[in-house]
């Protein structure tokens, strides 16, 4: 490629003409019951530390995925709504630009990645993130023997001073890609990659897949008229789309 073309590429907003894959997730709030299975699945898959009561009380817990709760109305006409909140893998991520050491960037798959090795812990990304899905290692956490034996060898354990967050289980994506390569396939098949949270969801509220593939389940879900993005006005272009909870009108049935 000529230098002129390279330069033109470099000057293009968003840089990527096209992602190799564009991993996306939909979360159907009409199915979500807030059961928190996904939270533990994430903790198990990604070696999230057990921080202990003291650290938890200081709000130093590390959760890549959390359930938010919102009450609507007053007793007795009251509703509780859940909102699973994880890294939205924004295509225009507010968290990526401010990192002085480029420890977080957007990769070819449309993922917002965090490179622990590189992070020096300015925590700017977390401040800039409107979804507050980034967790910081305020301490080096350890596992009481023999709990460390459950650690996932595909995922690193992070040391103190490092920011971390949801990766859409990039290690699973990697495994699926390697498998596709072994099988002489050019692309990963729909459904071959499921992040831990999606895998565990008892109500099948979460759907994950490649939104570039028009036939994938997630692409179909993305067309759902109930779809919305949290804090859409911020124009962060999240890869996670929520499907609005269906509210019955009035109390009568139908």
């Amino acid at each position, binding site marked *: 490629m000529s230098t002129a073309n390279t330069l033109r590429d470099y000057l293009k907003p968003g*840089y990527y003409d096209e992602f190799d894959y564009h991993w996306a997730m939909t979360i159907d709030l009409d199915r979500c019951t807030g059961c928190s299975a996904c939270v533990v699945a994430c903790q198990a898959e990604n070696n999230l530390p057990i921080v202990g009561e003291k650290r938890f009380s200081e709000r130093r817990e590390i959760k890549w995925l959390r359930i938010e709760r919102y009450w609507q109305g007053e007793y007795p006409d009251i509703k509780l709504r859940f909102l699973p909140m994880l890294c939205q893998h924004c295509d225009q991520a507010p968290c*990526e*630009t401010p990192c002085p050491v480029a420890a977080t960037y957007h990769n070819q798959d449309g993922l917002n990645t965090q490179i622990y090795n590189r992070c020096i812990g300015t925590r700017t990304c977390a401040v800039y993130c409107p979804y507050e899905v980034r967790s910081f290692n305020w301490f080096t956490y350890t596992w009481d023997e023999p709990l460390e034996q459950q650690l996932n060898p595909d995922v690193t354990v992070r040391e103190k001073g490092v920011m971390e967050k949801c990766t859409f289980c990039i290690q699973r994506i990697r495994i699926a890609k390697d498998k596709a390569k072994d099988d002489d396939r050019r692309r990963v098949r729909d459904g071959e990659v499921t992040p831990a949270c999606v895998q565990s969801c008892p109500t099948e509220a979460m759907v994950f897949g490649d939104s570039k593939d028009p036939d994938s389940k997630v692409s179909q879900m993305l067309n759902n008229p109930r779809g919305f993005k949290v804090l859409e006005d911020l124009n962060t272009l999240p890869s996670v789309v929520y499907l609005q909870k269906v509210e019955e009108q009035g109390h009568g049935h139908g």
Partner: protein
Amino acid sequence: MASNILGLFRYEEDFIDAAERLKSAGYDELTLMSPIPLHDAEKVAGLGKSSPVRRFSLAGALLGAFGGFALATFSATVFLLPTGGRSIITFPPFLVIAYEMTILLGVLFTLLGFHVVSGLPAWRDVPYVEDTNVDRFSVVVEVDEKSDPEAARRILDEGGADEVRDLGEY
């Protein structure tokens, strides 16, 4: 065979007068020292309304502006790490870098310019009397074979110098 004659003055006016007179008498190798900057004396010393330092400043500033932008683009292209949906070569932030680098290199080059133009640091042995850095103004005339040391001494004396000294050779 050169020799240095020093005239030490108490008053600024005498000092400048004497320097002017020496100059008109054909003594070119004058060193005028004062505890404070004096515009009149600078004029006598033949220093104009500007200084070559500015060239250094300009060069530094321009180099900084270019260099800053180049540095930013260079490091952005070593590894392509697109962030926040912005392009790889991003103008607004890189201009800030260019701006800061303009100033940084501008300052550094000005410093360089100062050293080059003023000839400092100069730790060699030079004619100098400590009083000139307190409250005396001094003129050092370098006289060689062709010029007349006595005449210079006279001009200094008549000009009101407190003291005229022969400093010998440097």
